[in-house]
């Protein structure tokens, strides 16, 4: 059983280990990458902080509470980006014809694409998420009990899954769209930005788009409401804070449908 599993994982492990080694082997380059990734995360965090110089509450949340939203959503997204981010490269593969090479190997196409690379520089971005989350938890005096821990773990795990689904969804659409990354960036990176904001300030259309269709509100805002027992916001009730796994499931149904549709289009029917 364990042997069979190890044999199945071997192809992916071989690629990923080689990718990680090659990224880390150019020391100076790698450090620069880490720093630039760190800076971009810090700028986004600073944006929230600057905003709270002008106001004391945003969408009914205080700075410390927003910190928790930011930490949860950004950490989940960064981890997804680390593992799934290079799915953005699909248009390059399509143009160069290297996607065909994946078809000549005995593994599922999507798994090959996902494990074709790993973006280690996102580690520094994830570190900012960890710090923000830690700070958010500290300033809000969360009275730790089993329920809160379970909520936090569920929110993080399903947040990662939801964010990852956005990358796969975007990749599926790339099969149709020429130079389509501007459109897909709108919901992938726009979604990340939205996820780090209090969803209570959104208008109704935005709540439908990033609250439910691309369920990014489930990665930071809703679990925070639940964790801190904050009042329900219209269209996004507090009890939804527990529904991260459902949101992730929906996001993956959407992503897989899009991916299948894209692959079908690429191969020209059937498949």
């Amino acid at each position, binding site marked *: 059983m364990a042997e069979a599993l190890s044999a199945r994982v071997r192809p992916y492990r*071989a690629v990923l280990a080689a990718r990680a080694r090659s990224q880390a082997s150019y020391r100076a380059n790698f450090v620069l990458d880490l720093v630039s990734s760190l800076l971009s995360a810090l700028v986004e965090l600073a944006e929230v902080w600057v905003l709270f110089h002008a106001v004391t509450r945003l969408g009914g949340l205080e700075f410390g509470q927003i910190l928790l939203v930011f930490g949860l959503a950004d950490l989940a997204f960064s981890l997804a980006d680390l593992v799934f981010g290079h799915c953005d490269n699909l248009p390059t593969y399509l143009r160069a014809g290297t996607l065909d090479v994946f078809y000549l190997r005995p593994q599922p196409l999507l798994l090959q694409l996902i494990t074709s690379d790993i973006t280690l520089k996102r580690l520094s971005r994830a570190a900012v998420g960890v710090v923000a989350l830690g700070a958010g938890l500290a300033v809000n005096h969360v009275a730790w009990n089993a329920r809160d821990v379970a909520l936090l773990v569920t929110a993080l795990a399903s947040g990662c899954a939801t964010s990852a689904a956005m990358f796969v969804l975007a990749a599926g659409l790339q099969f149709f769209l020429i130079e389509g990354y501007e459109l897909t960036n709108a919901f992938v990176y726009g979604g990340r930005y939205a996820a780090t904001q209090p969803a209570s300030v959104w208008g109704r259309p935005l709540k439908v788009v990033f609250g439910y269709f691309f369920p990014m509100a489930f990665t930071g805002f809703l679990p925070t409401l639940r964790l801190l027992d904050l009042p329900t916001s219209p269209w996004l009730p507090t009890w939804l804070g527990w529904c991260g796994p459902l949101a992730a499931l929906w996001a993956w149904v959407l992503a897989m449908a899009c991916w299948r549709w894209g692959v079908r289009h690429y*191969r020209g029917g059937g498949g």
Partner: protein
Amino acid sequence: MAAIVETVGLTREFTVRDGVRRRRVTAVDGLTVRIEPGAAVGYIGANGAGKSTTIKMLTGILVPTRGTVTTCELNPVKDRRKLARQVGVVFGQRSQLWWDLPVRESFRILAAVHGLSVATERTRTDELVDRLEIGEFLGTPVRQLSLGQRMRAEVAAALLHAPRLVILDEPTIGLDVLSKQRLREFLLAERRAHGTTLLLTTHDMGDVERLCDRVLVIDRGRLAYEGDLAGLGRAAGAERVLVVDLAEPSADLTGIPAARHLASEAHGLRQRLAFDAETTTAARVLAAVADRAEVLDLTVEEPDIEDVVRRIYAARR
């Protein structure tokens, strides 16, 4: 024995957007071919004739619009992953190596991808490294290789899992004479040693002459010729050209039996005569020329593949 490749009425259409209008284009049109295990087949045709589309259908990348295709007794679309273990493909124009990793590392990853055991991986890698003379650049990152070195590494990568069927898409494009020769010798040896079936697309008549015992010519998606190489020359009526360098400027050498004067250079010091190898020989034409002028040097030019294909195409239109 069951065929290794068999297509019946294989057809593939594409929708091309032409401004606002949509147009259906047939890339492969009712292709019916059968390739026996162990054969070496040259698949030739002009650019856009449908060669790549056919290869993509044989390997399960593209789904046929109509007709059936069986490769290694499998349905390529449904059994793509099973088929991948039995087929190796070399694309002259796109790499399946990791450009920033040493060649050795790429081989190691591909061995893992195909689930080779440690022992198999070692013997097979050693065999390929030795026969393709890769040893000297095994530790070099792929991006630093010359084109000839990279092609050898690509071929080794595609053959690492000892596939029954090897498909080569323009394998010698851009290679110098020596590299081409080495690659052809390797492919011949591989075929002898393992009974591998070869299917190659090429623009190089030398590839077809040295490697293939059967030729398929495709024209606008349809099979235009199927048979051996000699027959191809006959079908095309392709002529060979005798080029003679004469001792003195001479008048045009017209009226030589079964030969046709093509051109004269340098006041007739060099003349070109076309002849049909079916009706006469180079020696006979040469003898006739020698009767009329002193010959200092000569070369015989073989018909090139483009010319042969053009003639076949012209005869069909």
